[in-house]
């Protein structure tokens, strides 16, 4: 793979982290796409809850000496299944998550305190360890990413319909329960990928912030996911590139870039709202009403 990418030209340092850059880019794509539905379905809190259980799973795997990625995926899926089974409705969901999250975090802390290996491994699960993405781990990331992207492509339209317009979508025969479980599973996979790269505490910066920023500046169903992915990839890859020049871990840079993008989008949307669609509401119906009233005047 290193023949294909020529990071050597950028210096030895870049060559060392090229696995991480691929991982970050993948994560940006996944996070940006999944984030669109996280935003539409108001599942930001679920992202956080799943991340904590994913962290517990990874910590358990670390303690048991098995594959950490596997542990994180299993923890995520368990959280996703619990959230899916116990709280399909938004109101139930949030309390279920609020109950699960501290429990998962507590378990994770317990496992970590029992673990006697390198401290860097422990810290990494919470705040990210992207610089140490190994070849084998990259294989995992790539295959899981493919699963998530293909899964989303299959359910994209029905899930959009269901998220935006649930009554009509159900009347049209869409299986609301099944689609919401499938999405929760895809979300869980995406979260577990993110936990392995940016750590459990900062998952939101790649699964929530980029889509939230994109939604500020566009309502196009094509442009929103595209921008969301661009923002997430920029934050993840940009975070690594900046961090290379310093001795600070990557996560503060990832979160800062993603936050700055959000700020810019917010400011520009405010300006757009002031002169754009927001001021239009009063104009159009007036013209219509003249037509209707006149046609009704003729009635007895």
């Amino acid at each position, binding site marked *: 793979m290193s023949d294909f990418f020529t990071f050597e030209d950028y210096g030895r340092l870049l060559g060392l982290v090229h696995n991480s850059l691929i991982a970050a880019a993948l994560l940006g794509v996944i996070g940006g796409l999944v984030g669109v539905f996280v935003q539409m379905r108001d599942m930001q809190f679920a992202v956080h809850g799943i991340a904590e259980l994913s962290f517990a799973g990874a910590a358990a795997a670390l303690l048991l000496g098995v594959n950490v990625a596997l542990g994180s995926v299993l923890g995520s899926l368990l959280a996703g299944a619990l959230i899916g089974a116990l709280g399909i409705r938004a109101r139930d969901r949030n309390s279920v998550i609020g109950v699960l999250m501290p429990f998962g975090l507590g378990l994770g802390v317990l496992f970590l305190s029992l673990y006697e290996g390198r401290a860097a491994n422990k810290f990494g699960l919470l705040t990210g360890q992207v610089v140490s993405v190994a070849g084998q781990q990259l294989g995992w990331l790539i295959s899981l990413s493919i699963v998530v992207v293909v899964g989303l492509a299959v359910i994209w339209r029905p899930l959009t319909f269901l998220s935006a*317009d649930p009554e009509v979508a159900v009347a049209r025969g869409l299986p609301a329960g099944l689609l919401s479980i499938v999405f929760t599973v895809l979300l869980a996979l995406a979260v577990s990928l993110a936990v392995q790269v940016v750590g459990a505490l900062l998952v939101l910066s790649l699964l929530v912030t980029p889509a939230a920023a994109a939604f500020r500046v566009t309502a196009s169903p094509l442009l929103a996911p595209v921008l969301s992915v661009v923002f997430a990839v920029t934050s993840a890859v940009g975070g690594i590139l900046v961090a290379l020049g310093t001795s600070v871990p990557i996560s503060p840079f990832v979160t800062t870039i993603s936050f700055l993008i959000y700020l810019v989008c917010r400011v520009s949307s405010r300006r757009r709202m002031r002169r754009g669609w927001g001021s239009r509401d009063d104009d159009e119906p007036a013209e219509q009403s003249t037509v209707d009233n006149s046609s009704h005047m003729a009635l007895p």
Partner: protein
Amino acid sequence: MSFGARTLWSGLDLDLVPGEFLAVLGPNGAGKSTFLRAVLGEQPLSAGTMSVAGRSPGRGNRAIGYVPQQKTLNAATPLRARDLVALGIDGDRYWLRPRSRADRARVDEALSAVGATAYADAPIGLLSGGEQQRVRIAQALVGDPSLLLCDEPLLSLDLRHQRAVSSMIDRRRREHDTAVVFVTHEINPVLDMVDRVLYVAGGRHRLGTPAEVLTSESLTDLYRTPVDVFTVRGRIVVVGTPDHPVEAGRGHDHSHHPDVTVEHR
């Protein structure tokens, strides 16, 4: 149709012909929405049979266009008016693929039929209630249904939009022979369009033309309490029902006092 010991209606024999405009009236909780849910296949009948466009009711019947009770759409939804309408065509298709030119043309046509072309590209969350309702009707009609179900489509619209929306629906059924089932609290905005009325109350119903059903005798019999129906300048005013199911204009007064009679315009 009953829930436990409670019967919403029984012995209902209704044949809706293409292009017919049926208004479903009745007090809150009488079973108007349940009637729609039964037609949509979301609620099985407790007894009897029903056939919708030649098949038994089931979810996902493309012959039905559905306009749900108005609920403001999430302002952050990344969909424009035209995208919501397009979901009426392909919202239930798996595997993401580009929309065909023909489908996009149908969306444009549906939007212009409801007079929503001006805001076709506006985010749905930023549309006013009346605008959203037009877009919803476009969405329901874009699949060219043979039956249009509307659940309180005029709720929370001002008089002007009530008329615009109902005359839009009326035009549609005349031009395309689409049968219309219109669940409503307010008969007056659609009085001159309605062919038949299904009035549900207290576990019983009346079915017939507005002139047959909306009379003092018929409603007194249905409610088992004295009800007066007046016609005031082409508008029907029902006085004395336990729940004021038919009201003049706006100003919802869901009072439960049988003798409150504040209905004048």
